[in-house]
């Protein structure tokens, strides 16, 4: 019934007044944000700012998955969640109480695996890939296809960043673009390659923005489209292929119908010790 739809109380109207007066959002958009559930995989340089801006925008429920240990060298990227101390679980809770007392924030201090990914993702509307390794990116892609969720994928390394939305409105999935995993020796993580922390910060902010638009039913900018950022140059938008008919997970006759062993598929561990921000 109409009465079962949550609306906004006076405190929420005051808190979100600058969003409410935007005609593209309005009260109905804000209510949609409040009713949305967003799952973020990885709380590093991408996931932290994304989580903060999603909470600040009024997303009703945010799940945060991370199994990372704190390292000193992560500090310059994982800046926000460190403000309250060094325990991610505690930080996230405190942070959300301050930003959005009505939001529920669910920290999952666990490794995302083929065994738990489906059940976890099924509970959410939108998924953000903020991970740092190839195996988890394929796992997340397949789990989002099987559960029918859009996947907002961000990545960053050195002075560059990339962003795209998979599995939305006829657009491709990660496997449509990359049917075969890269040779393990060609994959560089942020520990080995380095990164300037504000680059994933910018990409994480853009991931939050895409999720906000998806949650409101507004069109995302980067479905079937790839945003490239180079800190020494500028942004570039690339037109991508549509969903591929022969894709093994999202195509017409998918051969993958349940989650597989992604470490074996990629020939690389998701738990690579050198990857400071991996999530498994």
């Amino acid at each position, binding site marked *: 019934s109409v009465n079962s739809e949550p609306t906004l109380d006076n405190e929420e109207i005051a808190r979100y007044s600058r969003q409410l007066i935007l005609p593209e959002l309005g009260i109905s958009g804000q209510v949609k944000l409040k009713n949305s559930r967003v799952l973020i995989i990885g709380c590093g340089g991408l996931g932290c700012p994304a989580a903060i801006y999603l909470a600040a925008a009024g997303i009703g429920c945010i799940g945060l998955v991370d199994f990372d240990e704190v390292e000193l060298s992560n500090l310059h990227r994982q800046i926000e969640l460190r403000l309250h101390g060094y325990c991610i679980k505690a930080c996230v809770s405190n942070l959300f109480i301050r930003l959005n007392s009505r939001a529920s924030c669910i920290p999952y201090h666990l490794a995302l695996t083929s065994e738990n990914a489906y059940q976890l993702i099924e509970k959410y509307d939108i998924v953000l890939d903020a991970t740092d390794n190839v195996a988890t990116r394929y796992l997340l892609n397949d789990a989002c296809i099987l559960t029918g969720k859009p996947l907002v994928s961000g990545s960053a390394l050195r002075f560059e960043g990339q962003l795209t939305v998979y599995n939305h409105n006829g657009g491709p999935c990660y496997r449509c673009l990359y049917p075969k995993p890269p040779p393990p020796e*060609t994959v560089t993580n942020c520990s080995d390659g380095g990164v300037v922390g504000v680059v994933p910060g910018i990409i994480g902010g853009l991931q939050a923005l895409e999720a906000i638009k998806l949650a409101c039913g507004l069109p995302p900018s980067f479905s079937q489209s790839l945003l490239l950022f180079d800190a020494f140059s500028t942004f570039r938008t690339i037109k991508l292929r549509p969903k591929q008919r022969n894709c093994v997970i999202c195509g017409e006759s998918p051969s993958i119908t349940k989650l597989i062993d992604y470490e074996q598929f990629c020939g690389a561990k998701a738990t690579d010790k050198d990857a400071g921000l991996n999530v498994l």
Partner: protein
Amino acid sequence: MSLNLKLEFSGGAELLVNKVKNHDITLPISSKLWTLRGLLDWIKDNLLAERPELFIQGGSVRPGILVLVNDADWELLGELEYELQDNDHIVFISTLHGG
């Protein structure tokens, strides 16, 4: 007559071509037409400093490298069979996985 191309390597692919992101090249017009397949051979012979297998595998770019022609995914244009045009801007971008 010759074919002028702007090649760009990014996302780490530039590390395979002397760490230079932008390469303005000129291909001689021969009796055959230049396709992306032919360009890959030319890159292998002229630009790849060492370990070409980190860029080319099985006659195409290795998994994890996306090829863009004038800001569009090469899959929309015929991939290896795409016939190069004068002043085309070809980008080879290595997918990033860091976060």
